[in-house]
Structures are given as structure tokens and as C-alpha cells.
């Protein structure tokens, strides 16, 4: 079942003519001519679509929180600042099929009553910005954007804004600050963007994938979307699979397939690379907890783990993780978890905005301690120190970056403590090039 990527390999799909030939912009016509904004919102609510940026908050509910005072403009902002290590799905969608996003933007802006909308694209993706701008110009030329779209009386202006290359600007309030032309520091909440967002006006910030999915929901109805998937995890999800698998890439999966299927089936990742076996998986981008092979394949109660929001987080952080933004990083037994954790910690150290003290100082501290362990200068007490620092950061920061920095470190120690201990106890072995700790009884191949 493919919704977003159905026609993505069609040559020329980035042009409006080919896109329309494959059923594009039908949702705009249907929504603007036959439906009211509230009906569109109602369909999205019925669909059970959950935010695809990472937190998984229901999109319809987020829309219904939007304050609607008289005489104040409302804004829709598309968060295309995808910078999570391991996640590259939005990039793929916008690059291959920009009109999918633009169609979703028109439908969603109509539902929210926004007459100006923005797509905030990560600064590094300059060529994607050019593609989007070209596509937007095409849409203007065909009368799908601008004044009085398709004679419905609804006006919409759509702008693309380039970010400056900061991970923190993917946090919604930092994104709004950056969009206003300020330093991308997250705001204190409340007030939430739904009440005071862009230029202190009510604003909805949604991920690319969430917005793109709304046009299918308008075309086929919220109930049809809710049919796909299991329980409260409805619809399809783009997963960007990377690491030691045979077929890395972006896959659109119906939520509810098993993790085992996803890793080993030829339809998706195609299994671990020749002669190696699964060691650990980071299931939803670098900020979610890492899980060892046995825990990612089965839940604590012995059931097969599914690719859904609920199943992946089953067991809390003790035995579970999160679906996050769908950055599926697979590691085989040649991966050193300490080194991997260092890479993540260094990233968050580099990307912390420096506004609140736990995150600013804590991320740097964790980075330095793990680096010391990796270089063979670890002390016994460092492991407990890392756990404690992670605990002191988590939940005490302005924005979720603090949590995102603390979780991978805490989880790596929770599940691979022996590996950290080995690094500290045997620095002469651990600092050899390519050295990886093998658990007693483990082997290198299948």
C-alpha cells in the first residue's frame, strides 16, 4: 500500500503536468469546491493521522487547538528542516515529488483558514529549495496558488524559506523564531504556537509527511486512511533505512508490519549484509533509545514487535524505544556501541542552542566523557556519571533537544553497559583500530 510514493518513480513527476496526469491536485479541487474547512479537518481527525515529525501527536487534534480570533491572520508552517541523523524521508519526497507537498499545503492551509503559508527547508538542501520554488511557480501559473484559487474565492500565498543549517531549528518554536529572522532559540511554552506562533499569531507547524498525507485523506476519506495500519497507528509511514542492510533507502510501509519483516524481507531492507548479523537498531532517528537485536524483534511479553507507535514504545524505555521520525539505523556486530554513542553525543553537543544550562553544559559534558572513554582514558565512575548527567538533563530543558541528547546515551548504557566497561577496563584493546567488544559466546558471522 503506497500513498505518498505511489508515482514517485514516474519520470517527470516533478512537473505539474505529469503530476496532474497521475491524479494530482484532485484533492485541491475537491476540498476547495465541495468541502468546508471544518469538513476537511473532520476527515483528518477521522483518519487518525499522527504527526510524522517524531512526537506522533494526532494532526487533527493539533489543528483543532488552533486559536481562531477575529481579524488575526493564521499561519501554516511546514517543518522541512529534517536534520535528525538517520532520517532522510522528507528530503526524498520533496526532491522527487515536490507537488505532493504543495498539494498537501494547499489543502491543509484551506482547512486551517491560513492565507499565507511557509515551507521552512533545511539550509543544506539548497537544490531541493530550487525544485520547490520551481514547482510553486508552476502552481501559481496554473492558478492553484495565489488569489481566488480555482474560482473558489480562497487565497493562498506559499513561500519557501531556507534555514541556516541548525538542527535546533527543527524544533517548532525555534523554527518560528528563525522564520521571523531571529536567532533560532526555542521559546518557552506555554504559550504554544497554536495560540501565539509566527509573529504572535496562531500557527500550526506540521511535518512534510503529515501535510503530504492530507491530500490523500481528502481524496479517499479519513475512514479509508484509518483502515490502513493497526489501532491508533493508522496509515503509511516513510521509513529511511540505513546502516548495515542490503538495501538502504526510503520505504513507505503500512504501519503494522513486523520489525523482523521490515529488516529481513526482500521487499524492504533485504536483511543484514552478507555474512553478518544484527546487533542493534536505532528505530526512529538518533534521538530515540537504541535497542539490542533481541529487544527490537520481540517485545518484553514475547510478542513480535510491530512497526507502530505503540508496539515500538511497548515496555517504556526499559525494553522499548520510539517510532520517532522513522530514521531506522541498523547495526551489525562490527559496530562499536561506544563509538556510535560518541557520534550521537558529539552531534547534540554541536547542535545544542546554548540557551538553557542543563542542555548547553550537559551535552558538552557527556560528549567529553564518552570521548575520553573511547580514547582509552575512561574511569570506572564515568558510566554512572553519564547516567546521572543524562537524568539531570532529561525533562529539565526548554525544548526536547535535551531529552533527545540524554536518551541515546542513557539507552546505550542501559543495554550495552558491558561494552562501556570493556572500554574502561581494557583500554589497550579498545583503542585498537576497528576494535569491537564481543560478548562471551558471540561470534562474528551467521
Amino acid at each position, binding site marked *: 500500500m503506497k500513498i505518498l510514493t505511489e508515482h514517485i518513480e514516474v519520470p517527470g513527476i516533478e512537473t505539474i503536468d505529469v503530476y496532474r496526469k497521475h491524479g494530482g491536485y484532485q484533492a485541491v479541487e475537491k476540498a476547495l469546491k465541495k468541502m468546508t474547512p471544518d469538513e476537511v479537518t473532520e476527515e483528518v481527525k477521522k483518519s487518525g493521522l499522527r504527526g510524522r515529525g517524531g512526537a506522533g501527536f494526532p494532526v487533527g487534534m493539533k489543528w483543532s487547538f488552533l486559536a481562531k480570533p477575529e481579524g488575526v491572520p493564521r499561519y501554516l508552517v511546514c517543518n522541512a528542516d529534517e536534520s535528525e541523523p538517520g532520517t532522510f524521508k522528507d528530503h526524498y519526497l520533496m526532491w522527487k515529488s515536490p507537488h505532493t507537498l504543495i498539494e498537501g499545503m494547499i489543502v491543509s492551509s484551506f482547512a486551517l483558514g491560513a492565507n499565507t503559508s511557509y515551507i521552512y527547508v533545511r539550509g543544506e538542501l539548497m537544490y531541493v529549495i530550487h525544485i520547490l520554488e520551481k514547482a510553486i511557480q508552476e502552481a501559481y501559473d496554473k492558478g492553484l496558488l495565489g488569489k481566488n484559487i480555482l474560482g473558489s474565492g480562497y487565497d493562498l500565498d506559499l513561500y519557501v524559506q531556507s534555514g541556516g543549517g541548525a538542527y535546533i531549528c527543527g524544533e517548532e518554536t525555534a523554527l518560528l523564531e528563525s522564520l521571523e529572522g531571529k536567532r533560532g532559540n526555542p521559546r518557552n511554552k506555554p504559550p504554544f504556537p497554536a495560540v501565539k506562533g509566527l509573529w504572535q499569531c496562531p500557527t500550526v507547524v506540521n511535518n512534510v509527511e503529515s501535510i503530504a498525507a492530507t491530500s490523500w485523506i481528502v481524496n479517499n476519506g479519513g475512514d479509508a486512511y484509518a483502515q490502513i495500519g493497526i489501532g491508533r497507528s493508522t496509515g503509511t509511514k516513510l521509513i529511511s533505512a540505513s546502516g548495515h542492510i542490503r538495501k538502504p533507502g526510503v520505504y513507505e510501509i503500512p504501519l503494522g508490519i513486523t520489525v523482523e519483516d521490515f529488516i529481513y524481507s526482500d521487499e524492504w531492507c533485504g536483511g543484514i549484509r552478507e555474512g553478518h548479523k544484527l546487533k542493534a537498531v536505532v528505530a526512529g532517528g538518533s534521538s530515540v533509545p537504541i535497542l539490542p537485536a533481541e529487544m527490537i524483534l520481540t517485545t518484553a511479553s514475547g510478542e513480535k514487535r510491530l512497526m507502530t507507535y505503540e508496539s515500538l514504545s511497548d515496555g517504556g524505555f526499559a525494553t522499548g524505544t520510539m517510532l520517532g521520525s522513522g530514521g531506522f539505523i541498523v547495526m551489525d556486530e562490527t559496530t562499536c556501541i561506544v563509538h556510535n554513542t560518541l557520534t550521537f553525543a558529539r552531534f547534540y553537543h554541536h547542535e545544542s542552542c546554548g540557551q*538553557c*544550562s542543563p542542555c*548547553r*553544559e550537559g551535552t558538552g559534558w557527556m560528549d567529553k566523557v564518552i570521548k575520553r572513554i573511547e580514547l582509552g582514558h575512561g574511569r570506572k565512575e564515568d558510566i554512572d556519571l553519564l547516567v546521572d548527567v543524562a537524568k539531570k538533563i532529561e525533562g*529539565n530543558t526548554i525544548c526536547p533537544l535535551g531529552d533527545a541528547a540524554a536518551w541515546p546515551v542513557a539507552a546505550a548504557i542501559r543495554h550495552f553497559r558491558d561494552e562501556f566497561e570493556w572500554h574502561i577496563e581494557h583500554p589497550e584493546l579498545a583503542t585498537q583500530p576497528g576494535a569491537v567488544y564481543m560478548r562471551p559466546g558471540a561470534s562474528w558471522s551467521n
Partner: protein
Amino acid sequence: MKVTIDNITLEVEPGTTIMQAARMIGPEIAPPAMCYYEPLKGTGGKCRGCLVKVTAGSEKDPRPMPKLVPSCITTVQDGMIVENTINEQVLETRKGIVEFLLLNHPLDCPVCDQAGECHLQDFSFEHGVSSTRTVEERNTFEPVDLGPYIKLNMNRCILCYRCVYAADQLTEGRVHGVMHRGDHAEISTYIEKAIDNDFSGNVIDVCPVGALTDKTYRFKSRVWFSKPEDAHCDCDKCSGNVTLWYRGDEVIRVTGRKNEWGEVKEFICNTCRFERKKTSDWVIEGPTKIARHSVISANKYGANLIKPSFPIKQAALAYKPIDDDRDRSFLPAKKSLPSSEKK
């Protein structure tokens, strides 16, 4: 609106923050504030030193808040119950915050001009631990001259952003901000451009640590050796209400008048601060009132200490005789002991 902080209930106006409510009770209850500065708009929420536990959100919705909340920017709701000094989690978190703030802070208090009136010293003395767990090298920066009067020592900065708000709100033109990210972020002017503005000196007063210091005062004296006197003058730029810091008969420093929370309510101009350093320039009003716990008050002005009157009154109102009905007939008769009276 009724709010209960550490089992003390008081009535406040709608829109009051938890911090303001706690300050009404007294300094024993008020959470520490490293970044929050009441006279400057938009400050607060950054240092996380004032995190408190809300055990009941309001009368209508008595669920506890899942995370600790920053008391300086969280407004109270009717029936809110807040735990500050009596909550284990809050105190534990605060230890962590002190540790984080000191992680890259040089322990150069013996040569720092701020020592003695430093909020970070107070904060770590009250809430920190005596030992350190870090062995990492500290991030260092070169000291920078911001114009003829102000010295920036970025090593000591805790990035509270107070000076950024002060420069934004008191001076014309945005000349002063934060560059870079994370623990390498630094307070800076654009390419070290000199701050040249009549009110720029106020960034020294708002700085909670010794990152921004007065170049006309640097290394002249320790604050506890100097004697503060309130004074005023006719100034066409500012209110002219200042504190003069004397060593002997010499005015060694002029600052704005700080209230008991270390906040300046009336910002002063650079002429008053840096150039009027003779007693003849001023009309002396008398010794400055200094909080009793401050080292500045050591051996000075015993009669002018600020006594915590409100908590004493509060305690007197809340006083209840002990309900004790044990048989005391075998004891020798005592002269009217109120606690042994039965209700």
C-alpha cells in the same frame, strides 16, 4: 487567586508568576533566579535554577504537572499547590543545575570583582555540593574590551541573556547579542564593535556573575571592603538614584540601586556611573540597606539590616498551641505556659 507555596497559602493577583508569589512570602521561600530579571521584559526560563514542582495545577484541574516548571515564567492558577524547598526532586535537580553552571565556570573567585555580590556564588553555596565530578578541561575564551568602560570575561559567563535583553531594551540599536551555539556560545558585539551608548553600563549591573565588569573599578577593591551609600543627583538622562561604593573617603564605584533580589529598578546612565566619582557630585541619602546574608553587610550597619518581617508575621498568624493532653499533674506547676493549655 489562592496559591500555596511550601504549605504557605497567600492571595495574589491573576497573572502573577510563581516566582513573584514566592518572593512575596520571603527570601527563604523564593526560588533562586540566575537569568530572570523582573525589570527586563522577556527574561527567564533559561537557567532552570528556579524549577519547582507543581503538585496540583489548579482548583479545577488538580492534576500535578508532569515536569518541573520554571517558576519565573509560569503564572499561578487559582488553587495551585507548589513545592519548592520541601521537594526532594527539586533540590536534587538544583544540585545538578549548579553543577552544570560551574562546569565551564572558572573558580577564580579570589581574583573576580564580582565575588561577594555574585549570584552564582550564592546559588552554589545554597544549592550546590562541595565536590566536583568533572575532570574535563574547561572551555576558555579570551577577555574582550567592550568599549572604554566594560570588560567582558566570557569564561565566567553563564549565558543568562540578561545583558542581551538589557542592551536591547535600554539602548538604541541592536549592538549586543549571542554568537555561536551550545557551550561555545558567547556574548559578543558585532566584530568586537565597541558598545557606545549612554545606558550601556547597565549590562554590568544586570550580569549575575563577573563576566561583565566595570573597567573603572576592576581590581580596586573587594566589595566587602567598600561601603555602600545611597545617593542622588540631578541628571538630565536618568533618574540619578544610585549607590555609591566608598573605600575610605573615595568613591570607587557607582552602581544602580539594587533591591533585595539584586535587581536594578531604575537604570542609570553612563555619565553617572563612570564619570561622577566625587562626593561633591552627589547628595548622600544614607547607608544602603543590605540583606543580612550578604557578605557586604559583614560588620556594617547593624541597625539597617533588612529583617524578614513577612515570614515572622506569617508564622505568628499560623501559630497554634500544641494539643497535648498528657497527665502533667506530677510536674511542678509552671507559670502560664500557653502550649499546655487545652483548646
